[in-house]
């Protein structure tokens, strides 16, 4: 079997440039520059009430003038905050990405023969977060402030409901409209906040060119992700990827529909060059079909293996960096990690495009016992091109039938024009299938 795998990560970048702006916290800017967080990635490690959350964002811009405000379900201390490694999230993204698989038909005159090859690619949004430290602030109790890595972290008390907003105002930050209302609601639900600002000196000392992801470990019965603040300083819909790492099985939302994206679909060969567009348009169409109110499942798999692999499974060391606390410490040296031994970790990748209108409530999750593997997998089948040595009339006809079926499926999945799709398909034997007899209503709503 000749298989070609292209991980979807490159197209993540495409999506970012077109849609953009997301985060479970919100940014507050001092300068009037457009400071929008873009596609966000959140890793949720959860077992019982223990949670480790890693938040990565590809913020680009001047980091000195802004802070990020992050709600957490419980009071936290210095030791509960950490700065993570962006590369691990990139690896997790590559491992779980929807994949394009390529097959080549064997010589139709011989027995079907296939071999296998794979390629993976990763290029991922980075991380960003900041905070501001202030010695005193009128009427606001600052419970603690620390420097963690390149960040200054400030934990604010919930003693006064408007403490956080006032503190931000006092320190010259611009607050998104509607923020006070949401902050008050979170405080009413016993949530706490921390503010992160880049410590410029520490950052230059450490020498990172990008912002590393922030991690928080906490114990809370709330298995949720606060997204309401993230809708405040966003223009339009936002893109969020959630990777849940659990012990038992797949994670799903309890207050929104979790829907599997169409998978194992055969697509025309030209999709290889337009995989980003294909995936983006398919995602948009599926979102539309669910009235913009669904969370999509893109990957659900036991971390011990993959088939086909868009990237190797994460090593135990990487998983522990992400906060998978139930794994042991028997790290192997890097050279031995070619066969990663991750066990007892089930990964669920969810993708949601949201705004306040369609997702009024925060995302609530539950872990299910479902360990069935699922992956977004799209298949290209190339017809035989070489010398055949026999009459190919029958083979060509069957290939044309397949190509026409693929064209219709593609139109249906993406909303692309069927005529344009047919133009791009090199039909077998150079004969386009008869489409003139298509009833007039077939393309009326597609």
């Amino acid at each position: 079997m000749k298989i070609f795998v292209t991980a979807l990560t490159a197209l993540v970048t495409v999506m970012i440039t077109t849609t953009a702006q997301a985060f479970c916290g919100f940014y507050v800017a001092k300068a009037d520059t457009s400071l929008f967080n873009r596609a966000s990635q959140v890793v949720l490690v959860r077992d019982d009430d223990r949670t480790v959350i890693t938040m990565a964002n590809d913020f680009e811009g001047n980091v000195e003038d802004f802070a990020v405000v992050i709600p957490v379900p419980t009071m936290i201390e210095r030791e509960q905050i950490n700065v993570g490694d962006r590369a691990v999230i990139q690896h997790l993204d590559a491992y779980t990405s929807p994949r394009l698989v390529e097959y080549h038909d064997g010589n139709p005159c011989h027995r079907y023969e296939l071999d296998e090859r794979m390629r993976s690619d990763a290029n991922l949004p980075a991380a960003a977060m900041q905070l501001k430290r202030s010695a005193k602030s009128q009427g606001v109790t600052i419970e603690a402030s620390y420097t963690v890595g390149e960040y200054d972290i400030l934990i604010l008390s919930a003693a006064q409901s408007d403490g956080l907003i006032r503190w931000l105002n006092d320190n010259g930050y611009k607050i998104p409209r509607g923020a006070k209302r949401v902050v008050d609601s979170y405080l009413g639900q016993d949530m706490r906040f921390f503010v992160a600002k880049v410590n410029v000196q520490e950052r230059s000392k450490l020498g990172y060119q990008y912002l590393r992801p922030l991690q928080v470990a906490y114990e809370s019965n709330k298995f949720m992700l606060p997204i309401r603040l993230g809708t405040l300083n966003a223009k339009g819909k936002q893109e969020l990827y959630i990777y849940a790492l659990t012990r038992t099985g797949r994670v799903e939302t309890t207050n929104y529909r979790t829907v599997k994206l169409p998978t194992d679909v055969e697509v025309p060969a030209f999709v290889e060059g337009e995989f980003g567009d294909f995936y983006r348009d398919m995602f948009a169409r599926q979102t539309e079909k669910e009235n913009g109110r669904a969370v999509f499942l893109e990957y659900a798999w036991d971390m011990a293996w993959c088939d086909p692999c868009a990237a190797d499974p994460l090593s135990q060391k990487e998983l522990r960096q992400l906060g998978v606390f139930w794994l042991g410490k028997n790290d192997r040296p890097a050279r031995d990690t070619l066969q990663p031994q991750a066990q007892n970790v089930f990964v669920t990748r969810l993708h949601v495009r949201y705004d306040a209108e369609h997702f009024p409530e925060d995302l609530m999750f539950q872990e299910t016992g479902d360990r069935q593997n699922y992956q977004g997998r799209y298949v290209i089948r190339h017809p035989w091109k070489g010398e055949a040595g026999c009459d190919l009339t029958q083979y060509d006809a069957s290939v044309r039938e397949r190509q026409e079926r693929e064209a219709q499926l593609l139109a249906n999945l993406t909303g692309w024009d069927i005529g344009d799709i047919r133009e791009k398909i090199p039909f077998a034997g150079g004969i386009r299938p008869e489409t003139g007899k298509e009833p007039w209503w077939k393309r009326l709503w597609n």
Partner: protein
Amino acid sequence: MKPLSRIRDPRYFQIAVLTTLLAFGIGILDFGIHWQNAVAILLTAQATQFIGTRLAGLPRFDPMSALITSLSLTLLLRTDLVVLACAAAVIAIGSKFVIRVKGKHVFNPANVALVTLMLLSDHAWVSSGQWGSAAIGAFGLTCLGYLVLTRARRAETTIAFLGFYAALLFGRALWLGDPMSIPVHQLQNGALLIFAFFMISDPKTTPNAALGRIVFAAVVAAIAFIIQFSYYQPNGPILALILSAPLVPAIDALLQGTHYRWEKPDARGSTHLKGVKT
């Protein structure tokens, strides 16, 4: 064939509505019900009902209630193990014969099976979000249609539960200063509607007196709300019902009413019936 208005046993309508929901869930929403589980639940429930009928010495085998329990279980229970689906049916139907107070079973069969399995196994869960809000409109109309067809007999449990629960959700939103779209979204939940129309409404496991049923519905709504929003656990209503069920004999002792009989839903008369009817 009888005209619809002449059918007195509301279970026919329940079966029709639940079957429609199941077909809709499997065919259109594709929300992960394995047909093997459905078959296993259906057959095991009838077998358990049959054995229970023989052991309890009941005059005749009645497949209707067991069928309704099977349909509710199939709609709500998710498991990757067929053996757990069978266990659910045995627990549900078996509980009717085993856990009884004064000739009345204590727990709603589907409810006790769901909670037992969720507590004992990681392989059983309820996917409460899988209905989606788009389907809810049609779903709600179907349930209302059911109320109309059964002339809302003993519907006060359903109406009171939904009323109290909605009041708590809207009250919470007002208290937190949240937009009203949040409680509206929380009410647009398929599992909540199945619970309200086909589980807490069960006349066999709710108090005999109308006032008792309203009090009971209020208690369930309050506990469900606390589980959902103080303990942040999903499936608040399902857990609340099992916690409240032991109150029913106490409420029955305080408030006189008529023990419900499926065949005679309008019957008035003695509180106690001879024999055991399930």
